[in-house]
């Protein structure tokens, strides 16, 4: 940790002034959680930003070593709690690659659709939170209205609004409920107009543009050096999206654009997410259109419960298998894997070392928010206290994911 207590004394006209240390957070309306920023201030100017993290550390990685693979899925919900389906998906994919199995097609479509729904729900929050950080409170309540619709859809699928835990190794927990397709279609019809509403409300507002355009610029080179990913990287003009460049699941069959913007400032990071929501809506529509009928989970009895629940009451073998899977979990062959997905916040990777038992020997999470947070120190034209707040808002970190 850098030493921040030594402050420069500035001599001017015989009067000596001192920089002020300002503690922004961990309780502060615009730190989006429990981030603590130690700022060295010269009046309104910010000389240095020093982020301190760890207030929400729950030891997810260590806990995972004592949990079976299925038990870890709810833990991953609590990483990026705005979009759990994509963290579930990232973890499950890593395990599936270790096991060398693949989920049935229908399950993959369901996963991708849920991930895109959650991408919308995560982006909606930031679409409203950045304007709120610069003072416009109203936008957040509009985006929350649509986020409510997304959460209702997720609730319809799995009963939970936030912590869905819907993915399973080798598939998903259940099939889609009846009447779901109509609800999604309804949402996909309404939503693009609503996105245009946000743009009308904010993107043509001169005060908002003055507060975000050209503020906290990250150059493409810096963005790559800092290890940024996701919308924050693409807003700086780097054309990189894991969904397109190393496709997983069914993304290679889908038609969508990767949004790239040139400016690398707060406004571009905001606009990038707004445009991504449009693309996500298109992906959801395609998923619902192309989704085949079929099983929603693999029939491999080593990892999955029997699809036909009636077997449980008549087949002894199935019953024993069900018991063992519930009580002890399934074994994963020894080896190690790094597998990553394009989560709403960026590249979310799981690095898992298996020693052949039911529990991972070590699990490491590459959390995009954690890496993206570094950009706080790499951005230029971030001179004022209010700019730091705008920058933090546009980076969109989720502190649960940063602290793990």
């Amino acid at each position, binding site marked *: 940790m850098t030493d921040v207590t030594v402050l420069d004394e500035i001599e001017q006209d015989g009067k000596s002034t001192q920089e002020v240390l*300002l503690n922004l957070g961990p309780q502060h309306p*615009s730190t989006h959680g429990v981030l603590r920023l130690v700022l060295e*201030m010269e*009046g309104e100017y910010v000389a240095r930003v020093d982020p301190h993290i760890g207030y929400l550390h729950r030891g997810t990685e260590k806990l995972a070593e004592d949990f079976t693979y299925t038990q870890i899925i709810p833990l991953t919900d609590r990483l990026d709690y705005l979009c759990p389906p994509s963290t579930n998906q990232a973890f499950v994919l890593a395990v599936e690659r270790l096991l060398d199995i693949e989920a049935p097609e229908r399950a993959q479509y369901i996963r991708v659709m849920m991930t895109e729904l959650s991408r919308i729900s995560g982006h909606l929050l930031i679409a409203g939170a950045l304007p709120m950080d*610069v003072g416009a*409170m*109203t936008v957040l309540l509009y985006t929350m209205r649509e986020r409510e619709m997304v959460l209702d859809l997720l609730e319809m699928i799995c009963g939970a609004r936030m912590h869905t835990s819907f993915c399973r190794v080798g598939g998903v927990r259940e099939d889609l409920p009846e009447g779901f397709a109509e609800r999604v279609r309804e949402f996909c019809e309404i939503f693009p107009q609503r996105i245009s509403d946000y743009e009308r409300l904010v993107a043509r507002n001169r005060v908002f543009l*003055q507060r975000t355009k050209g503020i906290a610029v990250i150059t493409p080179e810096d963005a790559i050096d800092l290890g940024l990913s996701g919308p924050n990287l693409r807003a700086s003009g780097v054309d990189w999206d894991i969904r397109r460049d190393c496709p997983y699941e069914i993304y290679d069959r889908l038609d969508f654009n990767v949004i790239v913007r040139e400016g690398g400032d707060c406004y571009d990071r905001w606009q990038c997410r707004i445009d991504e929501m449009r693309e996500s809506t298109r992906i959801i529509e395609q998923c619902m259109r192309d989704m085949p009928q079929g099983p929603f989970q693999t029939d491999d009895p080593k990892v999955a419960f029997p699809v036909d629940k009636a077997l449980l009451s008549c087949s002894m073998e199935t019953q024993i298998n069900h018991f063992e899977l519930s009580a002890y979990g399934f074994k994963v062959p020894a080896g190690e894997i790094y597998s990553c997905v394009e989560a709403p916040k960026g590249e979310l990777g799981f690095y898992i070392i298996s020693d052949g038992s039911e529990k991972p020997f070590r699990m490491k999470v590459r959390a995009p928010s954690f890496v993206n947070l570094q950009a706080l120190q790499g951005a230029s034209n971030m001179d004022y*206290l209010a700019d730091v707040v705008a920058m933090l808002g546009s980076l969109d970190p989720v502190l649960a994911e940063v602290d793990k």
Partner: protein
Amino acid sequence: MESFLAIGLIVGKLAVVIAILLILPIPLTWIERKIAGHIQQRLGPMRVGWHGLLQPLADGIKLLFKEDHIPVEADRFLFTLAPIIALVPPFLVFVAIPIGDSITLFGTEITLYLADMNVGLLYILAVAGIEVYGVILAGWASNSKYAVLGSLRTCAQMISYEIPMGFSVIGVVMLAQSMSLLDIVESQAGLWNIVTQPLGFFVFFVSGLAEAQRIPFDLPEAEGDLGAGYHTEYSGMRFSFFMISEYLIVVFLSALMVLLFFGGWHGIAMIPLPPVVWFLLKLSFFIWMFMWLRFTFPRYRYDQLMSIGWKVLLPLSLANILISGVFML
């Protein structure tokens, strides 16, 4: 006997004005929250009373019973004094604000103002300027960095915006040839000043927003970066003093806009309404304007605020004086 009646009348009017001003923030908070709610796709307060009408009372009770906390490191004397300094000037200002000409009740002519000063406008601007001391002292006495930053911003903001505000009304004074608000309103009997002084009104309105510390100029209490700004450390009734003061400033600025630019109690001849009703209607419109803006705009940054004040509003207000002068010649 005559003089007794006159004194009684003045005391009576004083009591009425103070009572109204003390009660006014109660419906205003409700109205503001309702406006906010409807702008933001929600209902606003609905639980306490019919459509939440009693919500301000519940808030008042809550504020009364809140712990009155003074930080250990704070300067106790100034910390206690600051809310009072912030609260008193908005009351004093209303001495010079007329809401109508005069009415006749029970054979006695009652004037609808407390005092008609020949320097009324100057008095109002001067007294309103005192309010900022309360804010600065509050920030300073709290001994908290957020509060100090908030009051530093207030200092700079008030100095920058009181100048264009003062200049913007000079055009009006030139037209009326008087600083008395009664004379200014009388001079608009035929034509409202907004027609001849649109630029002056624009400058006055924008600096008024800054003066009232409302969005987009609410930097002293910018929630996004300063938590709550100068009143971070205040709680309970002391905190509510600042709130009451803020609402009263909104009312008084709206009243000034009506009096200076929108013809005061002169209505449109086609619609016959009593003068006082005309005045109150226009007043409500401007109060609504303030609230409407608050929930539609983001906030400017400190340096942007400064450059608007000095580079845009000040030259504009000077140009307004020049143009008015040329036309009067």
